[in-house]
């Protein structure tokens, strides 16, 4: 395979080099203009390690009208990702080796990103009986992240057992923290606004109380815990406390919780209906701060495609979720980089190295040094673009950013040394 040269690129925004790639690896940082091989012009653009998403819903099998592993992979590649975790709440549920292997093979066939299936913690996401976690770990899909996402592993005994059991194969339980009794019928963040709009509230304490319980369980059992889509200031505090105690907990935040607030619910447009719900401006600030100081380890999209009819209806009938793979990096640039909360090394850590480490994803998140796997995202941070759902690769159009101007355009992406995106288009 001939060498590729990313000409004049600035790794993490530093001085320009020619990044030379061969045999799926970064082999040289040559002086700009001097690298030898097939040239991809990246003059002045910023190189980041290929992004890794810990949390996406690719909907296949079962909801192929909303997304497939192929279209989800395309959206991911265009968003700068080189690895994506596919959540288990498919139909059938990814609670057996057979289903996770199927999803993994579909990812291999698409060939655009590493599709890492997430296994369900419990059979059918029902929260009662452990799924065959070991079989999924030992399968061709090598599952390491287990989650009932969409449902909380609520039974404290089942949660304890799951946390303990996956230690045998270095797995992690990724908890969707939502106290079910406190969120019966919940429609939006519990706030002054929910009272005014007459929508049943989803109180912050329903998230925080589960996280508090889980970090104590993880501490007690010496297990590893990952918290999905942290959405409240109180959750950040609990996780900060747990980390200070030495508990092995990691956490993710979604791009939309870094930028959108519950004020958007005022118009009852279900595009803004998501679980956990959009919170207050104070929560948004606390999440940004938590991501900046490392309390929150990773940005994860919670990309949740839905067919048109699931959003083209009244609020309470609508599905929860919004797509996010193609806008994630832009939102992080707007909310974290431009305000000075994260530099480009920080972005590389929160969107590549940390999620790869949490998910035990081999060959990803290795950075841009010589010898690292050639997973590279090249971004033009100054370019602005207008989010247009009709132009997105995702099969669904439920983006909350339609018509919004976003900074940062993904220009080129290399996955395992092969271009998947060139000049902003699928290669």
């Amino acid at each position, binding site marked *: 395979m001939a060498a590729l040269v990313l000409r004049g690129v600035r790794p993490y925004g530093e001085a320009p080099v020619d990044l030379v790639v061969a045999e799926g690896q970064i082999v040289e940082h040559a002086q700009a203009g001097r690298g030898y091989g097939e040239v991809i012009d990246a003059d002045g653009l910023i190189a980041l390690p290929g992004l890794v998403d810990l949390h996406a819903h690719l909907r296949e099998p079962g909801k192929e009208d909303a997304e497939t592993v192929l279209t989800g992979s395309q959206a991911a590649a265009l968003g700068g990702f080189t690895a994506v975790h596919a959540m288990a709440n498919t139909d059938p549920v990814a609670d057996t080796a057979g289903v996770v292997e199927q999803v993994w093979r579909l990812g291999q066939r698409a060939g655009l990103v590493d599709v890492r299936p997430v296994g369900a913690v419990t059979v059918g996401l029902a929260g009662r009986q452990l799924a065959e976690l070991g079989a999924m770990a030992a399968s061709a899909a090598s599952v390491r992240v287990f989650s009932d996402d969409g449902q909380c592993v609520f039974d404290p005994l089942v949660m304890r057992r799951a946390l303990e059991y996956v230690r045998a194969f270095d797995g992690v339980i990724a908890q969707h923290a939502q106290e079910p009794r406190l969120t019966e019928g919940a*429609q939006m963040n*519990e*706030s*002054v*606004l*929910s*009272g*005014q*709009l*007459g*929508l*049943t*509230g989803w*109180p912050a304490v329903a998230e925080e109380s589960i996280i508090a319980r889980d970090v104590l369980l993880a501490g007690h059992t010496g297990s590893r815990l990952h918290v999905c889509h942290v959405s409240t200031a109180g959750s950040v505090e609990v996780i900060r406390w747990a980390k200070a105690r030495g508990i092995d907990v990691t956490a993710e935040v979604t791009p939309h919780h870094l930028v959108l607030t519950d004020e958007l619910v*005022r*118009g*009852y*447009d279900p595009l803004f209906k998501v679980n956990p719900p959009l919170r207050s401006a104070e929560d948004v600030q606390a999440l940004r701060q938590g991501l900046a100081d490392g309390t929150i380890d990773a940005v994860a999209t919670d990309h949740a495609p839905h067919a048109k*009819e699931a959003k*083209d*209806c*009244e*609020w*309470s*009938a609508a599905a929860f979720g919004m797509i996010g793979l193609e806008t994630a990096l832009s939102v992080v640039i707007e909310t974290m980089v431009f305000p000075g909360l994260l530099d480009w090394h920080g972005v590389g850590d929160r969107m590549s190295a940390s999620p790869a480490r949490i998910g035990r994803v081999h060959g990803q998140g290795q950075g841009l040094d010589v010898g690292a796997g050639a997973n590279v995202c090249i971004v033009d941070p100054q370019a602005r673009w207008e989010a247009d759902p009709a132009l997105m690769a995702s099969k669904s159009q439920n983006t909350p950013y339609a018509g919004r101007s976003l900074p940062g355009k993904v220009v080129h992406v290399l996955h395992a040394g092969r271009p998947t995106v060139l000049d902003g288009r699928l290669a």
Partner: protein
Amino acid sequence: MRHLLSAADLGHDEAVMVMDTASQFGSIADRTVKKLPTLRGRTVVNLFYEDSTRTRISFELAAKRLSADVINFAAKGSSVAKGESLKDTALTLEAMGADAVVIRHGSSGAPHRLAHAGWISGSVINAGDGTHEHPTQALLDAYTMRKALCGGKGDLAGLRVAIVGDILHSRVARSNVLLLRTLGADVTLVAPPTLLPHGVQAWPCRTSMHLDDVLGEVDAIMMLRVQSERMQDSYFPTAHEYSQRYGLDASRLARLADRAIVLHPGPMNRGMEISAVVADSGRAVMVDQVTNGVIVRMAVLYLLLGARGPRDVRPDADMPVSA
């Protein structure tokens, strides 16, 4: 004004105008021939996703007295029961030429969605949505208070009103707080803390957890229906305890000011939030509320539709403006 979705859609002068207009229609209601030709040729659809005979027939009568054609579209026994979406139902009504859709829906915000999603071009009137609002109920309540306590003119400045009961789940309370405040009244919400909404401190009213504390200082007291099933969700221990602490009985009635009136949006749970003695007393104005409901809804239909030409004259004159 194009739609009536929330009591907050009405400014002070508009709300007074609705009541003044209703007052004029009230004089017609006393005639032998009660019908006006105002909305002849216009079509009003009552789109009811919840059973509510009293609200539906009130709107139906109001539209008919203005000579509009009225279609009752009940979710039960229609294609809705088979799972047709709100959107498809709306498109159907639009294709049939509805000038106004009066909607009752269990989902908060459904009328807002109907008005602003671009599905229909006619006016939307919220006849109660989920636990959100019921603006025409607030208008008829305000009208009833104005007639009984304020000489039937102007606004409600200085009037002291208590709203008692399940505020949390009450669309009537939300609309009343907004409208009564607009009209200058002082509102106190009375309920056990479990039945007050989160963030109620930010509402333009006071709150109290003790009915006995407010009885002596109100001109009107509105008792809300409390479903005894709420005790299954631990909102209160038993219906008996609720009634003891928050029910309006004869002894509490005796402590009201002499001129104070008792309202209830109905249907009443006699023996729960209101005793039969109170419900049947001369202080209770529930029958007036029903009478006033018709003329207030006539006024709303007239002001939304009468001022605009028939829809086929200006089909795209003013498409909904999205919020």
